[in-house]
């Protein structure tokens, strides 16, 4: 044990290399070194790091109770699962419907199409077109998901449809199969469900491709080599790090047997190496992995099957050497020597349990620990003929496998092994992993058992309430509903308004939907179970009130390539709703940057049109909940035209002068970036501020804006105090031409800190500490309304903020002695903060302020003793 520990030397590594997760991989050479070159989207080629997926408007044949709109709801939900990974910089979004058959699109993106697929093929997906290698990776240009044109026997509300969709989207983003039970695992070993669609292996896999800042330094890594006893490297062996009741993350070995598991959340892990199952698709490797290729495009074949082994423990997981992974630290030298096998004795084990309500079995097995025992079934290649010789044990404490670990043949179908578990009062819920031992070999099935403390949610009744003055509420009654339950109607989120602990009733707001539609009600619980488990065939539904089909008009109906444009969409019989509405323009060359829903029948949107966009007419679609309104040819991309002397404004070109972020408030100082903003020499103004400077005027909602400074590419201004919160139309006239309108969001407050000063007027920062006991003066902007009211542009009187301001210094919240306008200035606020002598000195700390729940940027500073 000690010798093994010495082999696992701790090394801090700053950069990642030779990580070989389950991505699509290329190598520069067949003979090494094996630094993987990944296929992934180029974030620089995406607007706002977002890859948009469009669904073909050629509707498939749907099941009797299903609709195309409901399917779109499921697609949005599946995409959202991949979008909610905080450690990943890639954003994934639904872009609307598109005429994929005829579209011409230049920007990277994804499409979901419906094709004639033969029996036995549910769908296929993945990168389909790639660009030449650049900056160390192969850019994915287009990804494609193909679903069957005949979905009559595959309702979109089913568990299998959704998890398959999430899986195929993962391929489209650059992920291959894993062997850990995650969403990217093959279906037979997948433990992901609708209610918990992704696991750690999925989020780590995507984060490794598109890491957010700090991802690698906040996680740990394990690296080593897998070889034969003679030292020959083994290729495409799966090395898996298992936390007994927590995350499972894995990697594949490179052709020389080296591997690196990165992105490990700090925790204790045991490690094992296991061959993926034999491949079944032509041209693919084990586990149906796309083989890595060399510089000629030739595949590098996998090694043959090998024994499974735990690190330091041989075949015994309980004798395995745990590794305590810490952030920013890598365990190196974690090696395996594995004997080769002619075949794998056991693989592809699927586990099942019966969720109740006479529903069919579900996979993986969910076992309720509130009873003293629980049962699951297992089926796998090599398992059935050898049930009597197999023993099963669990990784993860608090659970005992009864009958000495021997599964018994399941009565109704003896090919399945029945495994009985015993719990104690301290058994915790969560994932557990099974180890099958047979004839001296072992097979590990991560995430095979999900221990839960309640059964799946079951909706027994759904009633409508219509509170006065509000929209309808859907009241759900049933079993195992809770305040942590999430509710969906046809895949669209129904916001939970309240949960009655006594009656167990959930009240939710139905999202917008098509008139007359009987939307499937699904309830998800955070333990991974959903009502789909227990009501797969006859779920309760909510019937939307009858309504005429919706229709939309678009104005303007065209926009120039290379510009940001404002578009107004008016609807008839529509129900646009904030947080539910997505606007798409049928091509990844026209990207919706922001939508303002003004009413149920009117919205405004800002779109960015790629400079290389094809000059074609596209389909505009507005999806609100599951209500879809589309207009074929509703928007046309035109060549950039107009005078070259006109000002050009960009989305989010107006920023807070202090934070440089696109959050501005009435009365605040703001900076506008663009081009052609002035045709004269740069100019600055004195108080009172003019509304025309160097021939340039700026208006917001047709209201002139006081100007501080003007140049061709920048305007500094003070926003009027009288601006209402919400979208405002910004225009610039440079004395000769007017810009196209641009929408900007005005918030009630948008705090920004410029500087801090001592009471003597000296700058306070990290190099010039503030003295405890002194009063520091903060200069800020965006603190909102003041009293008495003042006019923007005029020298400010003494006027205090209408909302309280709090200042946090060194983590301690303080009450300022004054918060209001800086007298004699325009747009500047002054906040005087007495620093208590009782505060602790600090060589490095921060100051920020908060108003109406909004926080400013933080200033670095230091504090010294009185």
């Amino acid at each position, binding site marked *: 044990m000690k010798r093994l520990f010495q082999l696992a030397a701790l090394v801090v590594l700053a950069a990642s290399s030779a990580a070989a997760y389950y991505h699509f991989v290329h190598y520069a050479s067949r003979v090494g070194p094996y630094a993987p070159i990944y296929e992934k989207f180029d974030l620089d080629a995406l607007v706002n790091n977002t890859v948009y997926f469009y669904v073909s408007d050629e509707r498939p044949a749907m099941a009797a109770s299903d609709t195309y709109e409901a399917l779109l709801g499921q697609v949005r939900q599946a995409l959202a699962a991949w979008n909610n990974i905080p450690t990943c910089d890639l954003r994934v979004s639904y872009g609307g419907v598109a005429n994929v058959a005829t579209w011409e699109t230049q920007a990277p993106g994804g499409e979901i199409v419906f094709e004639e697929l033969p*029996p036995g093929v549910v769908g296929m997906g993945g990168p389909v077109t790639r660009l030449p290698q650049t900056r160390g990776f192969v850019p994915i240009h287009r990804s494609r998901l193909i679903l069957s044109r005949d979905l009559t026997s595959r309702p979109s509300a089913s568990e299998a449809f959704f998890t398959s969709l999430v899986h195929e989207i993962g391929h489209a983003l650059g992920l291959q199969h894993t062997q850990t039970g995650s969403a990217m695992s093959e279906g037979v070993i997948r433990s992901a469900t609708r209610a918990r669609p992704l696991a750690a292996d999925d989020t780590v896999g995507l984060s490794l491709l598109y890491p957010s800042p700090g991802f690698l330094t906040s996680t740990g890594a394990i690296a080593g080599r897998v070889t034969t006893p003679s030292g020959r490297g083994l290729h495409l062996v799966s090395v898996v790090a298992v936390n007994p009741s927590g995350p499972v993350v894995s990697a594949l070995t490179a052709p020389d047997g080296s591997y690196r598991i990165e992105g490990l959340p700090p925790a204790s892990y045991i490690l094992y190496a296991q061959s993926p199952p034999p491949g079944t698709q032509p041209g693919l490797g084990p586990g149906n992995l796309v083989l890595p290729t060399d510089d000629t495009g030739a595949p590098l074949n996998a090694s043959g099957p090998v024994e499974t082994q735990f690190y330091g423990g041989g075949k015994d997981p309980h004798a395995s050497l745990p590794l305590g992974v810490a952030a920013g630290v890598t365990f190196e030298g974690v090696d395996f020597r594995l004997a080769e096998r002619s075949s794998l004795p056991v693989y592809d084990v699927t586990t099942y349990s019966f969720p109740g309500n006479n529903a069919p079995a579900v996979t993986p097995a969910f076992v309720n620990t509130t009873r003293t025992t629980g049962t699951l079934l297992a089926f796998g290649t090599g398992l059935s003929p050898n049930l009597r010789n197999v023993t099963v044990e669990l990784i993860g404490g608090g659970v005992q496998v009864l009958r000495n670990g021997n599964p018994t043949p399941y009565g109704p179908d003896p090919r399945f092994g029945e495994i009985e578990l015993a719990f104690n009062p301290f058994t915790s819920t969560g994932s557990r992993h099974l180890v099958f031992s047979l004839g001296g070999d072992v097979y590990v099935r991560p995430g095979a058992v999900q221990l839960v403390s309640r059964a799946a949610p079951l909706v027994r009744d759904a009633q409508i309430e219509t509170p006065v003055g509000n929209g309808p509420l859907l009241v759900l009654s049933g079993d195992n509903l809770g305040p942590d339950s999430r509710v969906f109607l046809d895949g669209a989120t129904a916001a939970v308004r309240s949960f009655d602990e006594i009656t167990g009733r959930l009240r939710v707001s139905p999202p917008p939907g098509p008139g007359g539609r009987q939307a499937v009600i699904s309830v998800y619980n955070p333990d991974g179970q959903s009502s789909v488990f227990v009501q797969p065939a006859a779920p309760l539904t909510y019937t939307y009130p009858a309504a005429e089909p919706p229709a939309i008009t678009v104005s303007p109906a065209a926009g120039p390539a290379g510009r940001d444009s404002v578009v107004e969409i008016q609807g008839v019989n529509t129900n646009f709703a904030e947080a539910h509405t997505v606007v798409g323009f049928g091509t990844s060359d026209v990207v919706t940057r922001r939508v303002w829903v003004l009413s149920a029948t009117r919205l405004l949107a800002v779109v960015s049109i790629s400079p290389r966009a094809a000059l074609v007419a596209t389909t505009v679609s507005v999806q609100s909940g599951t209500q879809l309104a589309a207009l074929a040819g509703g928007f046309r991309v035109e060549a950039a035209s107009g005078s070259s002397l006109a000002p050009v404004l960009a989305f989010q070109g107006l920023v807070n002068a202090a934070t440089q972020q696109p959050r501005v408030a009435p009365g605040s100082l703001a900076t506008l970036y663009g081009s052609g903003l002035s045709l004269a020499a740069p100019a600055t103004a004195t108080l009172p501020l003019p509304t025309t400077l160097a021939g340039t005027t700026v208006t917001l909602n047709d209201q002139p804006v006081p100007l501080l400074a003007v140049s061709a590419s920048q305007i500094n201004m003070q926003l009027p105090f009288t601006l209402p919160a919400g979208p405002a139309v910004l225009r610039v006239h440079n004395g000769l031409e007017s810009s196209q309108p641009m929408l900007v969001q005005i918030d009630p407050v948008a705090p920004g800190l410029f500087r801090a000063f001592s009471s003597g007027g000296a700058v306070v920062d990290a190099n010039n500490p503030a003295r405890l006991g002194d009063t520091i003066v903060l200069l800020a902007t965006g603190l909102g309304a003041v009293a008495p009211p003042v006019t923007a542009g005029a020298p400010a009187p003494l006027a205090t903020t209408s909302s309280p301001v709090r200042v946090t210094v060194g983590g301690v919240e303080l009450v300022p002695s004054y918060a209001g306008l800086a007298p004699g200035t325009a747009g500047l606020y002054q906040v005087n903060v007495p620093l208590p002598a009782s505060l602790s000195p600090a060589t490095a700390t921060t100051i920020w302020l908060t108003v109406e729940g909004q926080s400013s940027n933080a200033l670095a500073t230091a504090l010294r003793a009185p």
Partner: protein
Amino acid sequence: MRVVRRSLLLILASLVPAAAATLERLSFEDLVTRSTGIVRGRAISSSASQIGSTIYTRTRFEVLERWKGAEGTQIEVFEPGGTVGRSSQSYSGVPRFEPGQEVVLFLWTGPSGRTQVTGLSQGVFQVVRGDGPDARVVRKPSGEILLAPGLGAPVRDEELVMSLGQLSARIRVVLEKNKR
């Protein structure tokens, strides 16, 4: 508490996601029954064309033996993926055929008239000719099969390696059974 035993009703979860395809595992009987054509053929040539937004590779086969489907000395099989001009699409796991390759194909012709391999690679059996008189056919196992609700018989998974004669006999058995 004794577990209440019941008949094994399982949701149809026999989905096998490949690197690019999610498959529904088909039993041998399914393959025969749901295919519109079953042939033994030798690949002659391949070319790609775009149909709608999908690029397909068409492989022309010389038909050497036919068990099911319309008569003809040649057959054209479409599979997604290929290169047309500057456009290229690739779908991993899709069967590709080399000229001269001999295979037994389970085929499905859809409403469009396009013929594809049933179940993607599940419908392809490689013909291996050795020194002996009988050729062998090989198809790798596709994993376990589960009971689907409503089916009277278990849907089993099998490793399929047999002589060509045995495969032919099994096909005929299912075809006969379907006729009754």
